[in-house]
C-alpha cells in the first residue's frame, strides 16, 4: 500500500475532527474523499501532508511510519483549495519551486517546467505573473507546481471548487486522463459528488470525522451504506420501513422490495426513477407541490396525505402541473433496502 492510515485521530479542543480513520490508497489509484464541509476531509489531507500532527494513530507511506517527519521531507504533493501560488514569482518560478527545493540542476528545472506547462496546456505562460492568470489558469499552474517534483502521492483539496461549472466539468475529464496517463496516485477531497464520481476509482464518504462508506463510484451510487450517505448523494425518498418478504410497510403504504432484501426494521431508499406516476384514482394519491426542471428530465415533488414528500423523475412531456392530483406506484427495481 502506498498510503495507509491506521486509526488516525485529530482532536481540536476535545472534538475529534478525524476519528480513528483507517484508509488505504494503492499505487496508481485515484481515491476521492467525499463529504460535507466540516466532515474532516481537509484535515485528513493535512495529516497525511504532515501539516497537522495526529493525536493518535499513524500515517504510513510505502510502509514507513511518518510520525515526527516534517512536511518538507514526506515527498507528497498537495494542491491547495485556493491554489496558494507564490504572488512574487512568475508562473515558471512557481512551477520550478519544488524542483529548486530538491536541488535539481538549473537546466533540468527549465526542461521540467516546460514539460509540465505543456502538459497542463499553458505552453507559453512561463514568464507570466500569477496575478494576471484567470481562475482556470491558476488551477493549471497549481497542478503543474504540485506535479513538478514527481511526488509519490498527489493530494488535491477541492481541486475545482472555485471554478465555474462548465470549466469544472471540462477540467475533471482532463485531470482524469492526465492522471491515468502519468500513473499518478491521487488522494482528492471534494464536497461535489459529480466531481468525485467523475474523477475517482474509489470514493470514500466521510461524516463527522469517520468514514461512512468506501467503494467504487458505481457501488456507492447503487447501494448507499446508510441514510446519511443516501441523503448526501441527493436522494430525498429515504424512510424507516418494516421490510417483509415481498413488500415493506412505509408511511407511503406497501412498497415492493427486491427479492433478496434483508428483512426487519430498515431504512428504505426509493430512487426518483422508481416513483411512477399513474392516474389519480390508482395507487397512492398525491398533490404536485413543485416541479424542478433538470434539463434531461423534470423532478416532481409530490405531497401525499400524512406522509413525507416524494420525489419523482419524469420525462418533460409527461410531467404534471403544480397543483395536479396524481397517483403513485413503486418500482421494486429502483428500491434499495439500506443496511
Amino acid at each position, binding site marked *: 500500500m502506498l498510503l495507509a492510515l491506521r486509526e488516525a485521530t485529530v482532536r481540536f479542543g476535545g472534538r475529534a475532527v478525524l476519528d480513528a480513520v483507517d484508509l488505504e490508497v494503492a499505487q496508481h489509484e485515484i481515491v476521492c474523499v467525499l463529504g460535507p464541509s466540516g466532515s474532516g476531509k481537509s484535515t485528513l489531507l493535512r495529516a497525511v501532508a504532515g501539516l497537522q500532527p495526529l493525536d*493518535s494513530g499513524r500515517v504510513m507511506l510505502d510502509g514507513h511510519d511518518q510520525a515526527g517527519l516534517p512536511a518538507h521531507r514526506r515527498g507528497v504533493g498537495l494542491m491547495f483549495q485556493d491554489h496558494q501560488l507564490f504572488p512574487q514569482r512568475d508562473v515558471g518560478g512557481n512551477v520550478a519551486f519544488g524542483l529548486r527545493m530538491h536541488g535539481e540542476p538549473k537546466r533540468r528545472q527549465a526542461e521540467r517546467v516546460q514539460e509540465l506547462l505543456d502538459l497542463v496546456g499553458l505552453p507559453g505562460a512561463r514568464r507570466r505573473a500569477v496575478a494576471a492568470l484567470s481562475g482556470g489558469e491558476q488551477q493549471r499552474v497549481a497542478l503543474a507546481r504540485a506535479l513538478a517534483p514527481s511526488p509519490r502521492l498527489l493530494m488535491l483539496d477541492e481541486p475545482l471548487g472555485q471554478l465555474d461549472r462548465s470549466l469544472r466539468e471540462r477540467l475533471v475529464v482532463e485531470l482524469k486522463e492526465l492522471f491515468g496517463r502519468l500513473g499518478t496516485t491521487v488522494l482528492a477531497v471534494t464536497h461535489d459528488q459529480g466531481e468525485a464520481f467523475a474523477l475517482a476509482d474509489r470514493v470514500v464518504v466521510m461524516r463527522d470525522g469517520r468514514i461512512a462508506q468506501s467503494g467504487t463510484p458505481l457501488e456507492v451510487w447503487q447501494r448507499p451504506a446508510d441514510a446519511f450517505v443516501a441523503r448526501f448523494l441527493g436522494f430525498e425518498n429515504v424512510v424507516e420501513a418494516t421490510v417483509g418478504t415481498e413488500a415493506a410497510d412505509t408511511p407511503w403504504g406497501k412498497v415492493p422490495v427486491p427479492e433478496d432484501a434483508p428483512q426487519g426494521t430498515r431504512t428504505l431508499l426509493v430512487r426518483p426513477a422508481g416513483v411512477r406516476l399513474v392516474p389519480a384514482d390508482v395507487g397512492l394519491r398525491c398533490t404536485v407541490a413543485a416541479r424542478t426542471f433538470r434539463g434531461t428530465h423534470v423532478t416532481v415533488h409530490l405531497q401525499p396525505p400524512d406522509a413525507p414528500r416524494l420525489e419523482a423523475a419524469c420525462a418533460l412531456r409527461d410531467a404534471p402541473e403544480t397543483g395536479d392530483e396524481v397517483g403513485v406506484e413503486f418500482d421494486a427495481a429502483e428500491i434499495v433496502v439500506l443496511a
Partner: protein
Amino acid sequence: MDLTRTEVAARRRGAAARFGLLAAPVAFFAVFFAYPVAAIVARGLKTDGTWHLARIGEVLAQSDVRHVLWFTTWQALVSTALTLLVALPGAYVFARFDFPGKQVLRAVVTVPFVLPTVVVGTAFLALVGRGGLLDELWGVRLDTTVWAILLAHVFFNYAVVVRTVGGLWAQLDPRQEEAARMLGASQLKAWRQVTLPALAPAVAAAALMVFLFTFTSFGVVQILGGPTFSTLEVEIYRQTSEIFDLSTAAVLTLIQFAAVGAILAVHAWTVRRRETALRLVDASVTARRPRGAGQWALLGGVLVTVAVLLVLPLAVLVQRSLDAPGFGYYRALTSEDGGVFLVPPIEAIGNSLSYAVAATLIAVLIGGLAAIALTRRDAGRFVRGFDALLMLPLGVSAVTVGFGFLISLDEPPLDLRSSWILVPLAQALVGVPFVVRTMLPVLRAVDVRLREAASVLGASPWRVWREVDLPLVRRALLIAAGFAFAVSLGEFGATVFIARPDRPTLPVAVARLLGRPGDFNYGQAMALSTILMVVCAVALLVLERLRTDRTGEF
C-alpha cells in the same frame, strides 16, 4: 506510543524556536532599557539601602511639580484635539479624492513626522519667534505663548492622523455606505451609521498616539517653551542636568512611566478592536475626483492648511539659514570655534550618519526578531504581553534612559561609558517599536497556507522563511529600516546625555548653537537644522517610493 512522544518533541521544538527568537530582544530590553531605568529610579529613591517611597508624596505635594503635571496633561489634550480637528479633513481628502500631485503631497505631509524635534522647534522659532517672520511682518511673537508649542505639535502629528485614519478610510468599501443609502439612510446618516463606527477605533488609536507623543514632548518644548512652560520630560531633564535633584527626577520618571503605561494599554485595546473584521478593499479603487463646489472647497482648504502649517515653517527655516551673504552660516559650520564645540559643527553630520547606520542595524535585528516571534501562530499570552512592552520606549522618558545609561553601564562587564556604541544603543531602543509596528502587520498578513504550500514542496522551515516570508516583507523591512534611521537621526533626549562632547550629533549640535547668544549662532543653528531636515526628508522620500500599502500605523 512512540508516536505521541515524537509529536510532543515536535511541539517542544516549536517552543524552543520561539524562545530562541525572543531571547535576543528580551535580553536587549532587559539590559539597555529596564536596567538603566531601574538604576536611575533606585539612585533617586534609595539611600543607604532603604527605599524612600515617601519621597513620591513629598514631590507630588510641591506646587511647581503639580503645575508641570497639569500643564503636561492639558497641552497634550489640547494638542491632540487641535491635531484631530485640522488633520481629519486631510485624512478624508487623502482617502477619498483623486487629484494631481497626490503622491507628492502625501510625502510632503509625512516629512514633519520624521523630522527631529529640534528642527521643528527651530523652524517654529524662525516663524513665530523673536525676529521671526510674523515678528517682521506684523510684530507678532508667539514663542512666549503656549500657541507656538501647540502649533508645533499639530505640525508634528498631522501625518499620524492622516496615515492611521486615512489609510483605513481609503480601504473601507464604499459599497457599505451605498448599501445603507439603499436602505433609506441619508448621506450624512449613512456616514454616521456605517463609516464613523468603522473609523472610530482608528481615530481613537491615532488620538492616543498623538497624545502619547505630545505628553512626552521634549525637544519642541525645550526650545519653544522658554522658562514658563515645561512638560514632565523637560522637567526631568532640568532636575537631572541642571538642579541635580535625582530623587525628584526619579519620582517624575515614575509618574511618566505610569501615565505612558496607561496610554499604551488603552492603545493596545483599540488596536485589537481595529483588527476586528472590516470589509477592506484596495485603496486605489475608492478614490475619485472631487465633485461639486463643496468638495473642491474642502480640497482647497486642506491644501492651504498644509501650505501654511507644514510647508511655511520649513520654508522660513531654509530662508533664515540663507540670510547671511554667501552661505555664511553654512561656511561657519566648517570652522572650529573652540567655544562650545571641540570640533567644527559640520562633523556632526558624519557622526549622526554613522550612529544612525549602527542604530538602524541594531533596531532592525532586534525588532525583526521580535516581530517574527510575535507572528508565530502559537504565540501565547506571554508573547502577546511582550508586544505591548515593546512600545514602552516610545513613551518612557528618553532623558531618563540616557542618564540611566551613564550611571548603570559604567562597570565591567558592561562598561560602555566611553564606547561609541552607547549612542546607537540608546537610539535603537526608540527605533525598535517602529520596526515592530511596521513589520508585524505585514508578517501577520502572510497566508499561513502559502508557507504550508512551500513546505509541502520540500522547503525546510528556514527555506520557507527565505522563500516566502522574506520576499513579501522585504519592502516592509526597508521601510522599517528607514524609520529607525530617521528616528535615530532625530533622537535628542537620550543622546544629549551620552554623546561625547567631541562627537555631537546633529540635533545636539543644533541645541548647543541655539543655547548660545547672538545672531551668528542662531543662523548656524538654522543652517544645521536645514541640513538635518534635508537628510531626513531624503530618507523619507526614498521610503515613500517603497511604500505601497498604507495601512501601517506611522
